[in-house]
């Protein structure tokens, strides 16, 4: 497979990581916590979508909407139950609570849904582009024929739709501008009359909705099992930090960078080293942070 094909794989991976990373980074910037249980929200969304699509046979887009609603509901219920009561204790107790909550959720999902992987029933059309010539440099083919599946196109299109919607929300609506204001300065936000708890709740719902969608897209690409989301949490976290923690636009950039680097390192590292491909993503993270500690799009690191 040529470079072009692997970049397509990377863009697809980057797309569902980006959707989740936006939710993750909004929680970081506005609620001021790192939510390590966030991967489990993806798993929940993927299962909700799966059972919705199979129990009552409904079309996949409707099942995805059900998963988004379910993700949003789960997120706000969990936040109200576990995070809001200890909101004043600061980032570290919140982080530790989220790690514990993640373990509990993961095992609860395994108990209820079982260990086996489940597959969404999708019809896939594959579009092939074989006419593109090879352009070999050493062992690497810089062009080469490639294919895209209809599923991959859906993943990318969903991501682009989410980006436009999030941009609109954050720049055009009162609640979105209030979210950004709160990320800047919570005390000043209160002085201006912003109900900070209401905004926090909105962020939780939004992050849950995004996790639900990301989980369904991830599951369509691969499968859904109890660790579907957990296996992505480090990539999501890296994308968010890489982009400048708290910045949704940075998180998008970070996600595509991570997705493409993962795909390329899987494809082009010598076969004995392919297990290191996720390490490569983190090597990039470390290098970027050494050069620009606030991340790609970050202007400041929020005070803890």
């Amino acid at each position, binding site marked *: 497979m040529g470079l072009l094909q692997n970049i397509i794989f990377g863009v697809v991976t980057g797309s569902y990581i980006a959707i989740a990373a936006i939710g993750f980074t909004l929680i970081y910037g506005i609620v001021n916590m790192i939510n390590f249980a966030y991967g489990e929200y993806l798993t929940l969304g993927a299962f909700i979508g799966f059972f919705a699509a199979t129990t009552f046979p409904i079309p996949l887009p409707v099942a995805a909407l059900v998963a988004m609603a379910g993700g949003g509901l789960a997120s706000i219920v969990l936040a109200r139950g576990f995070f809001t009561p200890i909101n004043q204790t600061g980032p570290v107790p919140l982080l530790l609570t989220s790690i514990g909550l993640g373990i509990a959720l993961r095992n609860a999902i395994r108990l209820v849904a079982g260990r086996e992987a489940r597959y969404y029933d999708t019809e896939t059309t594959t579009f092939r582009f074989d006419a593109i010539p090879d352009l070999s440099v050493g062992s690497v083919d810089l062009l080469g024929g490639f294919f895209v599946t209809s599923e991959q196109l859906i993943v990318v299109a969903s991501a682009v739709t989410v980006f436009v919607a999030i941009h609109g929300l954050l720049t055009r609506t009162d609640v979105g*501008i*209030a979210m950004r204001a709160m*990320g800047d300065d919570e005390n*000043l*936000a209160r*002085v201006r*009359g*912003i109900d900070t708890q209401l905004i926090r709740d909105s962020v939780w719902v939004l992050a849950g909705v995004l996790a639900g969608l990301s989980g369904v897209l991830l599951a369509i690409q691969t499968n859904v099992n109890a660790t579907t989301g957990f296996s992505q949490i480090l990539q999501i976290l890296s994308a968010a930090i890489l982009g400048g923690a708290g910045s949704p636009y940075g998180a998008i950039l970070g996600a595509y960078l991570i997705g493409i680097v993962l795909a390329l390192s899987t494809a082009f590292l010598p076969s004995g080293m392919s297990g290191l491909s996720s390490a490569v993503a983190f090597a990039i993270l470390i290098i970027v942070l050494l050069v620009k500690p606030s991340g790609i799009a970050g202007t*400041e690191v929020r005070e803890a």
Partner: protein
Amino acid sequence: MSLLDVEDLEAGYGDIKVLSEINLRVEDGEYVTIVGPNGAGKSTVMKAIVGLADCFSGTITLRGTNIAGMPPEEVVYEGIGYVPQSNNIFPTLSVEENLRIGAYVLETVPEERKQAVYDRFPVLADRTDEEAGSLSGGQQQMLAMGCALMLDPDVLLLDEPSAGLAPDLVDDMFDRVDRINDAGTTVLMVEQNAKEALRRCDRGYVIANGENRFEDDGEVLLNDEEVRRQFLGG
């Protein structure tokens, strides 16, 4: 009844008491300043009024309503506009978005008030879409005042508006405060630059160690032997 009445106020943060007994009143249309040495608790008076500091006892009455202990997101509905000393704008929001948040508690952004802010501070009108964090210190101070004015408050609280400004901008800032007061807005201002503040205000309070020390017309305080010797450096 005064517009704003602070009686026997004891306030601070958590377990720490900063104000032990503060009394002050502001009449409708007045321009009142609070001066005093560093650490006297001047800013804490402001923060207690808007709900950012904890009120332990005493009352803060605005047009007859006791607002002591009310959280900031509710105080704003009572008609108080507050401009903190620092961190008084949202740096990653544009100038326009900052003004929009200034009117957050209203159903719609009042266009004529926004235009009035831009007329008052034309330099902001040229930079509506720029990030507020990229403005100079003086421009940020103007934006912060503009945000507070978006609600057409009954009383405008200014916490050291001249702090951090280049010396040649300080006079300009005081002129702007004068004009805001002349246009009918009641002003309560805390200032480090005591002489200039007393020269410009109607009435002044000198506070030290969290207590009232002197209270009189600005000019009178400015010429008072005792005040000059203790607080104005002779």
